[in-house]
């Protein structure tokens, strides 16, 4: 099966390990990340601790997603029928290009040269904003963090709080410098108080909301048995986009489906507590097609594959499609906390990104080949995941795939073959160990920082220098006979 065309990785993205090394030198970003992730970890732990039946909820969440993933065509057809019955138009997109073309044609048909956007991972994945801008249509991000990223000509670095790498002083500078160029400027006396910054965003975006004729959203959930779409948010920018314009276009990954409306009883407990660490997020909007006299009268849903069917085909890997984009795995990950989100080279950073990106895009590029190694396999992500995605096992599974795909000629595959030959006979092992201890005398106590040809593995690990004497040599010296001849 050939991989479908998916969105390009961030241009010229080096391997994770190389990018992470640069990110680690950014001490400001490391401070910002450590502060933010420790704050959210404590909030999440407190509100998850309030729920006695949390583990039952996790199992129910995983079961609901697995039910859908095992029978995705059935549930998608049911969703489509219910959407159409309630006045929505359904479109299908095989890949990013097709989805972008569909959206662009829909926007052009309205005659509008701008759209307001609710934060949506799917539209970031397909790089919709860039395609719209190329066609002369302004796409205004309205989530505060997305606004910070957009105005800062920056990349998102976290799923939930894309501007997590910025602190309040940096945000104030971005607002003062950039807001005036695209609309209402920031007030002259703007301080770096979060409340003042939020107020500046409110005033800047209000004029855009009031005049907008087209909105673009994603969806957190799409309910098969009713045709209901659900958007979970905090600021009210989502409600503005979903309510005020005449036309609403929602780009929804095919894996976002839930079987029944009743499943929301589970997922609306799992998602807010895992994501923002709140009992419930401030606003959740649900809409089923068109409601006469209330909200957009021209409603479109674009169902997006873009590599998801490829992920589904791997019966172990498909559990990554359970992901509800809560970002709990990022906040507990020791690697993410230090390296930050940009090193992952995708809109999906952190542990879930380390498994999802190579699955969606294949392991052809440097960064996708390296992502399965962007982990110490500590298992914290699995513990935190509200839908029980076993990320550590998936990482190991993907590592196998990366090595296998190197077709036996990679330095790692060759050295594994050599190791197998060596371990097969104790005389070969002893000869190799004599060689290593000889090397030790040359190296002394120096740590080996990297080994030529084994970049991905040794770039992130120091190799201890070999000991001056092996166990076998020590045994023979102190016991007077070889271990092989033991009585």
């Amino acid at each position: 099966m050939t991989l479908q065309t998916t969105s390009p990785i961030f241009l010229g993205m080096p391997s994770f390990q190389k990018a992470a090394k640069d990110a680690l030198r950014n001490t400001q970003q490391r401070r910002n990340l450590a502060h933010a992730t420790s704050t959210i970890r404590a909030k999440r732990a407190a509100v998850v601790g309030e729920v006695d039946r949390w583990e039952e909820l996790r199992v129910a969440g995983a079961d609901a997603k697995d039910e859908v993933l095992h029978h995705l065509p059935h549930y998608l057809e049911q969703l489509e029928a219910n959407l159409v019955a309630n006045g929505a138009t359904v479109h299908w997109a095989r890949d990013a290009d097709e989805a972008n073309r569909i959206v662009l044609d829909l926007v052009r048909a309205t005659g509008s040269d701008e759209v307001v956007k609710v934060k949506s991972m799917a539209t970031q994945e397909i790089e919709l904003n860039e395609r719209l801008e190329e066609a002369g249509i302004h796409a205004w991000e309205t989530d505060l963090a997305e606004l910070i990223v957009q105005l800062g000509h920056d990349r998102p670095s976290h799923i939930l709080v894309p501007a997590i790498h910025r602190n309040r002083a940096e945000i104030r500078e971005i607002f003062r410098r950039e807001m005036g160029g695209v609309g209402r400027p920031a007030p002259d006396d703007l301080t770096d108080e979060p409340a003042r910054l939020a107020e500046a965003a409110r005033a800047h975006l209000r004029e855009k909301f009031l005049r907008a004729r087209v909105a673009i959203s994603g969806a957190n959930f799409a309910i098969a048995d009713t045709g209901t779409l659900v958007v979970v948010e905090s600021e009210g920018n989502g409600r503005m986009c979903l309510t005020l314009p005449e036309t609403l276009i929602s780009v929804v990954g095919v894996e976002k489906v839930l079987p029944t409306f009743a499943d929301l009883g589970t997922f609306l407990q799992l998602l807010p507590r895992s994501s923002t660490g709140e009992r419930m997020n401030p606003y959740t909007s649900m809409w089923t097609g068109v409601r006469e006299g209330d909200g957009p009268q021209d409603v479109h849903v674009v169902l997006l594959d873009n590599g998801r069917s490829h992920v589904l085909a791997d019966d172990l890997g498909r559990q990554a499609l359970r992901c509800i984009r809560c970002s709990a795995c990022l906040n507990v990950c020791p690697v993410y906390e230090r390296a930050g989100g940009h090193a992952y080279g995708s809109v999906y950073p952190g542990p879930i990104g380390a498994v999802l990106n190579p699955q969606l895009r294949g392991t052809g590029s440097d960064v996708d080949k390296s992502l399965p190694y962007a982990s110490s396999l500590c298992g914290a992500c699995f513990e935190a995941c509200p839908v029980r995605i076993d990320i550590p096992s998936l990482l190991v599974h993907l590592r196998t795939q990366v090595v296998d795909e190197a077709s036996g000629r990679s330095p790692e595959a060759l050295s594994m073959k050599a190791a197998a030959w060596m371990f097969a006979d104790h005389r070969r092992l002893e000869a190799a160990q004599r060689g290593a201890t000889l090397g030790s005398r040359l190296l002394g106590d120096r740590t080996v920082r990297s080994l030529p040809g084994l970049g991905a593995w040794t770039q992130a690990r120091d190799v201890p220098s070999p000991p001056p004497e092996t166990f076998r040599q020590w045994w023979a010296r102190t016991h007077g006979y070889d271990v092989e001849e033991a009585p």
Partner: protein
Amino acid sequence: MSAREEILGRLRAATTEVTTPVGHRGPAPVIGVPSPGAGETLELFAENVADYRASVTRCRPEEVGTVVAGLLDRAGARSVVVPDGLEASWVAAAREAGVELVPDSGADGALLTAAELDAVSAVVTAARVGIATTGTVVLDHEPDQGRRALTLVPDQHVCVVRADQVVHDVPDAVALLEPRRPLTWISGPSATSDIELDRVEGVHGPRTLDVVIVG
């Protein structure tokens, strides 16, 4: 082949090894905390609503008008939009106190535009259901709550919830709601955690949320 057929074909091909039938897992399980009693549920609701910086006032049915007028006055509201089906007595005292009442439907039947709504200070609505464990009110936009824009654009939302509308946990609320109506779940005023993950109240939605519990 159409995109639809091709995607469905790929998804079918990807799951050929699945042997379980559709609906294998059974109905969605209901996992929630049962109410320990109406009194405790109501207490918890009031506590959790207040925890997210919404104001909470409890009163008897005949006091709603006075309480609403007081809340509008406290926020300095000069005008209030009134959903077409709102209980008239709830805003009578406010009108007497000089607050301008703005009906959503004008004499010609036209609804307020977004810009007209933006010029109104506040909105008063009923609610469909309240959830104690999360401090949430859910609107289903019946005529006593009005269309979705009414509770979004003005800067103050006074939401009147009857005590018998408050359920204990999230699954209880989901079971009561009609999915084909637009639904808005509201937990505290508009907020963001986007700056250093510190919660700040007041972004695009109403910056003041006043919840009145009746009975």
